[in-house]
């Protein structure tokens, strides 16, 4: 349905301004597009951008060349601020940063100098969910083991407050009554997982996408040490690692949790549905935005990209720019009381 709609949208745009297709092509011909990545080279956002760098050009009218520029700082907030405010607004600069920034804006975090609602989103790469896992030798085998006063306390490692390793346990604690004890301060996801492997802590929380692409060895094979306890959202993906694992929203309903609790779970889950997003600044002309959005769709359907993604064990679940925009709007219109409670929970 989404695809049909978008084809219709392109058609309408074409009818409305017959010359625009040509002008987009003229603009991009011989140009170089910069993808400004908010993190240092080597991570997921960077690798994703470099993968797109190879495939995207042939799908953009005028076949511009693309370079990736790393601009690390503030957990990619610097890149988001710069692309929004100071970079060229002509469609030659694409920002690639973390989806968590949208949540940061909703929570009124310091440093945000953009409005995610006005950002013109081009795509996102994964539709994933936050989750928590425990070591199999921790004595915790199901989420119920850590719920309530008689539940066991489970120490989990985290690499930063307000991020994907901290929000899930904090929100589960607040809504479901779990007893995750979060130890923050680990230097990045790799150090976070090493602490689980060397038994310094008994568990960790991250996104399921991270597990699939970089930490599958912790759940299968000779080095397997852990089991997933809970996944955010209302449904659980059909995957061997997730057999019998409850979805957080379903569990909340089962436990008779309040509407507020559910709203909190939903708001924090929404952001992971637009994992690894790309966007251009508000001032970029609409016809170029449309051309870029369609180019991203075609790139994500390109066999070349799929081959590379398969090799990397990346299970792509892209979203169109329109869908990303919708989810961002939804997230930003989360009721104030829910947001202020979330702020309390993750502080």
């Amino acid at each position, binding site marked *: 349905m989404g695809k049909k709609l978008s084809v219709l949208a392109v058609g309408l745009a074409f009818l409305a301004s017959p010359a625009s297709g040509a002008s987009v092509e003229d603009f991009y011909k011989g140009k170089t597009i910069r993808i400004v990545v908010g993190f240092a080279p080597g991570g997921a956002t960077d690798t994703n951008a470099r993968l797109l760098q190879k495939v995207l050009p042939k799908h953009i009218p005028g076949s511009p060349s693309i370079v990736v520029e790393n601009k690390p700082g503030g957990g990619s907030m610097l890149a988001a601020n710069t692309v929004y405010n100071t970079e060229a607004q002509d469609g030659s600069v694409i920002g690639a940063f973390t989806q968590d920034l949208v949540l940061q804006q909703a929570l009124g975090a310091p440093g945000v100098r953009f409005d995610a609602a006005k950002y013109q989103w081009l795509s996102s790469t994964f539709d994933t969910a936050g989750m928590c896992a425990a070591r199999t030798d921790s004595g915790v085998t199901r989420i119920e083991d850590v719920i309530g006063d008689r539940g066991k306390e489970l120490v989990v490692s985290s690499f930063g407050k307000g991020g994907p390793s901290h929000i899930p346990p904090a929100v589960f604690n607040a809504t479901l009554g779990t007893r995750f004890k979060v130890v923050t301060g680990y230097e990045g996801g790799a150090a976070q997982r*090493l602490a689980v492997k060397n038994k310094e802590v008994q568990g960790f929380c991250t996104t399921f996408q991270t597990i699939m692409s970089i930490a599958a060895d912790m759940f299968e094979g000779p080095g397997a040490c852990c089991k997933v306890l809970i996944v955010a959202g209302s449904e659980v993906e059909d995957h061997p690692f997730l057999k019998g694992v409850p979805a957080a929203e379903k569990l909340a309903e089962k436990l008779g949790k309040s509407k507020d609790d559910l709203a909190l779970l939903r708001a924090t889950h929404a952001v992971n549905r637009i994992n690894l997003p790309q966007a251009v600044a508000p001032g970029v002309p609409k016809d170029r935005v449309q051309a870029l959005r369609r180019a991203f769709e075609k790139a994500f359907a390109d066999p070349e990209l799929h081959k590379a993604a398969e090799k990397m064990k990346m299970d792509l679940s892209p979203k169109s720019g329109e869908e990303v925009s919708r989810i961002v709007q939804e997230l930003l219109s989360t009721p104030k009381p829910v947001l202020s409670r979330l702020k309390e929970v993750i502080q």
Partner: protein
Amino acid sequence: MLEAFLSGLLDVFAYPTFVLMLLGIAAGFVVGILPGIGSPGAMAIMLPFIFTMKPVEAVAFLLGMYAVTATTGDITSILFGVPGEVVSTATIIDGHPMAKHGEAGRALGAALMSSLVGAVIGAFTLAAAIPIVTPLVLSFKSPEFLALGLLGIAFLAVLSGESKLKGVLAGGMGLVLAMVGLDPQENIERYTFGLVGLWEGVGLVAALVGLFAVPEIVDLWVKGTGIAETQVGKLGGVWQGIKDTFIHLGLTFRCSMIGTFFGLVPGVSGALSQWVSYGHAVQSASDKSRFGKGDVRGVLGPGAANNSGVGAAMIPTIAFGVPGSATTAILLGAFMIQGLQPGPKILTENLSLIFSMVWLIVVSNIITVIVCLIFLNQLAKITQIRGALLIPALLTLVFLGGYADTNSYLALAITLAFGVVGLVMVHQGWPRPPMVLGLVLGPLIERNLFISYEVYRFGFLLRPIVLVIIAVAAAVLFLPNIQEMIAKRSALKEGMVVADEE
């Protein structure tokens, strides 16, 4: 195992792997020599090319580059007093004074040979350690990392040269500067002045380039001569440097082992091991008077350590997915692109690839050292070029390198600010190495102190490996004093005996 060892070697010489390695080496050569512009930037540029390569080809291409940067980085450190790479900063301390005294050839010879020895030892230790490496790496937890950080602190005094008080204060300043940014526990802004660009702290590359390069350039400008204050000696110097490596083979070997050890520990980078090696070179010498003024042992130590760490650093990167530096982080990304998931499995299932890596490090270092030796005399002559001709090129490279740290003008401003700090320090006789050590150690100590206390409370102090490392740190701190006391006493006794006899 032996079969994999040999097939790993054969794979390196197969086409196109070998050619790709040569391309990588060529890139590494240039990147290593250019100050500020380091291996992470080069590897990021090389990354898109590997999508269509086979794993061994991709590894040859990237590792060929990475393996030689520490070697060629030493060249820049010696000739210009500007760090060619982050890991070759310690080479400046004695290497550059040697160049100033017309001993550039000897210093370069020593750096190259010790690099080669270090690389070979590091690579083969990696090969030999594969069966025991998993339990070894897993035995290092937050308290052990903290203890390693404290061991680094113990070396502050050794790195301070003649003025211990100034050294310790400079180290303290380094630790304070390391606190700039969001605190790792609560995300509270510290000394960021509202700049998001400072949230992740002061960029090490920008800081190092400023701290060392700017004073050198100003010095060169004021002097109005070439870098070498005296005439560069003839070819003999290079061979003397090579011979030095073997005269001090024990030191070279020990520093190679230090580099290997620090490479093996996940998340601890070569930025630390070069200083520990340098400190060890100073401490193990009976005559310390020449250190900081051009002692060849001060070149051999870090020269060996920064290369031996390259091989060892592959283990935490590929077997545990924990990279110790910006470059290995990108290398990890490259492995993912190649469909090689990090994990202990990789050590058993892709053994011949692992051995190819060992051989790649060895072969690319041999090639580099030979090429460098051929051109060494020409390189050493750079030190005779008039400063006025060198300064524009150096300035351009230095600020380009500073900017490239995070691709922002803020990084450039940090380079400039540290340049001023460096100038003042040099002028007032303050040692810079302790400040660098403080900058490197700050995050390591802070993170692990909090995590250790969170998880173990004070129990972390009683862990066996922690106790051993703290004992070593104590030895580093107090052994020189004890030795001195014993020496004084025995001198006193002898004096008394002599007096009695009279």
